[in-house]
């Protein structure tokens, strides 16, 4: 029988993968992918907990997370577009005019 812990561990692993992606990625678009991965990981956890408590709140949370992820993509891509128009690149390393 698959227990809650199994799902949660999968969620934890995917979350860490996402985190690694966030740390690793220099291309902003790819970096956004990684944040999506993290949010998806959380969704698994919520759905699983919801299932095992037989409670709908977790699904609600996951539902809102999906909505948030979608809006973030919209705004994020909007910002990327203006940025790309200006810099012609999505590489983070080009993006360090403010420091210190």
């Amino acid at each position, binding site marked *: 029988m698959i227990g809650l812990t199994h799902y949660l561990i999968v969620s934890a692993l995917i979350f860490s993968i996402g985190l690694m992606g966030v740390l690793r990625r*220099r291309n902003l678009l790819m970096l956004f992918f990684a944040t999506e991965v993290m949010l998806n990981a959380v969704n698994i956890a919520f759905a699983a907990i919801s299932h095992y408590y037989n409670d709908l709140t977790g699904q609600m949370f996951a539902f809102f997370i999906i909505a948030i992820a979608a809006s973030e993509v919209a705004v994020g891509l909007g910002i990327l577009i203006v940025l790309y128009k200006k810099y012609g690149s999505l590489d983070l390393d080009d993006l360090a005019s403010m*420091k*210190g």
Partner: protein
Amino acid sequence: MENLVYIALFAPFVSSMFSALFGMSPRQTFVGIVASSLLFISFAASAMLAFHVYTTGTSVHVTMMEWISAGDLTIPFGFLVDQVSVTMMTVVTLVSTVVHIYSIGYMDHDKSFNRFFSYLSAFVFSMMILVMSDNFAGLFIGWEGVGVCSWLLIGFWYHKEDVSREENPSISPSWAANEAFIMNRIADLGMLVGLFILYWNVGSLQYDVVFSALPNLSGSILNAAAVALFIGAMGKSAQFPLHTWLTDAMEGPTPVSALIHAATMVTAGVFLVIRANPLFAMTPEVSFFIAALGTFVAFFAASMALVNRDLKRIIAFSTLSQLGYMFAAAGLGAYWIALFHLAAHAFFKALLFLGAGNVMHAMHDELDIFKMGGLKKVMKWTYIYMGLASLALAGIPFFAGFFSKDAIIETAFNEGTLVLWAILVVTAGMTAFYSFRQVFLTFLGDERYKAFGIHPHEMYKFVLVAMSPLAILAMVAGFGMGSFEHFVTKLLPEYHMSEHTHHIAWILGLVVLVFAVGGIWLAYKKYAKGLKRDEKLENSFIYKLLANQYYIPQLYGEFISKPYAMLSEMMWKNVDMKIVDATVDGIAKFIYKSGDGSRKMQTGNLSNYLNWMAVGGVLLLVVAALSAMLG
């Protein structure tokens, strides 16, 4: 009587203020005249007070107002005119009056004539406070006051340049003034401590309260107080090791030397010991130390005088030596003898100095007696005055010095301190020698000054007349010894020679006389015919040692002044700047530098920022996990 007290006290003050009004204007003879008259008024008032005290045997005690009052301490401005203080008052005002008049002549050509009188009168005022005060704090006011006036007067010719010690042992008037002030300050600290001890153990600084409470105090407290007060006295009276300032103080105008550094201020230390005789009487060890130190200084100073070539310095050394005598007497318990010698010494020493002043005036401020000689021809009266004074100083019978000094030497014998006695006797001989060496070199022999193109002339008449009271007193003061004893021993403890001493007094006197006459004879042999320099002697170690004052000024310079200056420099540049301040700045710099360092984490690169965030988050998670698992 109260009014007389105030007149005696404040006349010099008025004189000082009056002169100060004209302090910055050009020479005005009337300033000197007014000042002298005021001083004379002060003298007259003092004399009347003296007469009053003498006739009635009572003292006059006035309290003007309260000065400091804090906690349990109350210090009034109170003035006490009793046998001791009235003696001092009379002596001080008398000598001052003479010196003031003298100065009108002596300072004739000085552009700071008015200023000089202002200082001089201020000094007299301070001295009067010193002697008249009815408490130790008041005494201290005068004590410091005379110190400042002495500073002002030694440095009167402040515009002179610093020169090397070889050229002028006192370097410059301003240097000498500072030296005097600072040396006195060292002693003043001792004096202050003495006051503190008395206050905290008695609760007052009034003489009467303190003295009546003394029997209740423990021996250690008494000793401490006596030592502390005596340290104060040592400074003012230039006792070893605080003596160097006195000879350097000769940089001041000669009237100053006469008044301050011979007759009055330097005797303040003796006065203090006499004033506080109940205390010193109860501390025999300290008293003996005073006597021993006095004897030592008497000899020590006389030895330096033997070879000195500077007219004023010789007299200064003799002053030191005579102060030693006074301390010896006071230390041995013969307070009235000390006081008597103090008064007598004031007269003849002032006279001696004023005579020296005449010579200087004539010689255009030349002081080297090797460059003088044969002045008798042009300066007859000065010669007579100085001769008289020297005779008195040498203790030739029936001059003032004979009575007083002989009494001191007798006392030393009487107390059984034969070593002291012997030293004092030898010193008496040396005194006679150097006094007359100076007189002979100056006035007799070949006229060496001609080689330097100097045309000496006698002092103004009025000056010579003004000096006459001193001359007369130097001759006759000794005859008043009996009545003086009678007068002051109403207050001071009596001192009588034992039967045995009394019995052989004439032998003792004869011994002293032999030494004195021997000294004069030796001086006559060597110098009366003119100067014959003895190269071998002058190059001997002893001669050099004496001529350089045992190298003590150099010693102080090398081992106190210079190290202090170096240490100060080090404290500033190394400690204050490089340690204390650098620490503060270092902390600031460290913070600033760490700001510079930590701003490097702000690379501007988003990836780094995300790393920081992840590092922070993961670290916190790890800490959370560890702390949860460990407890």
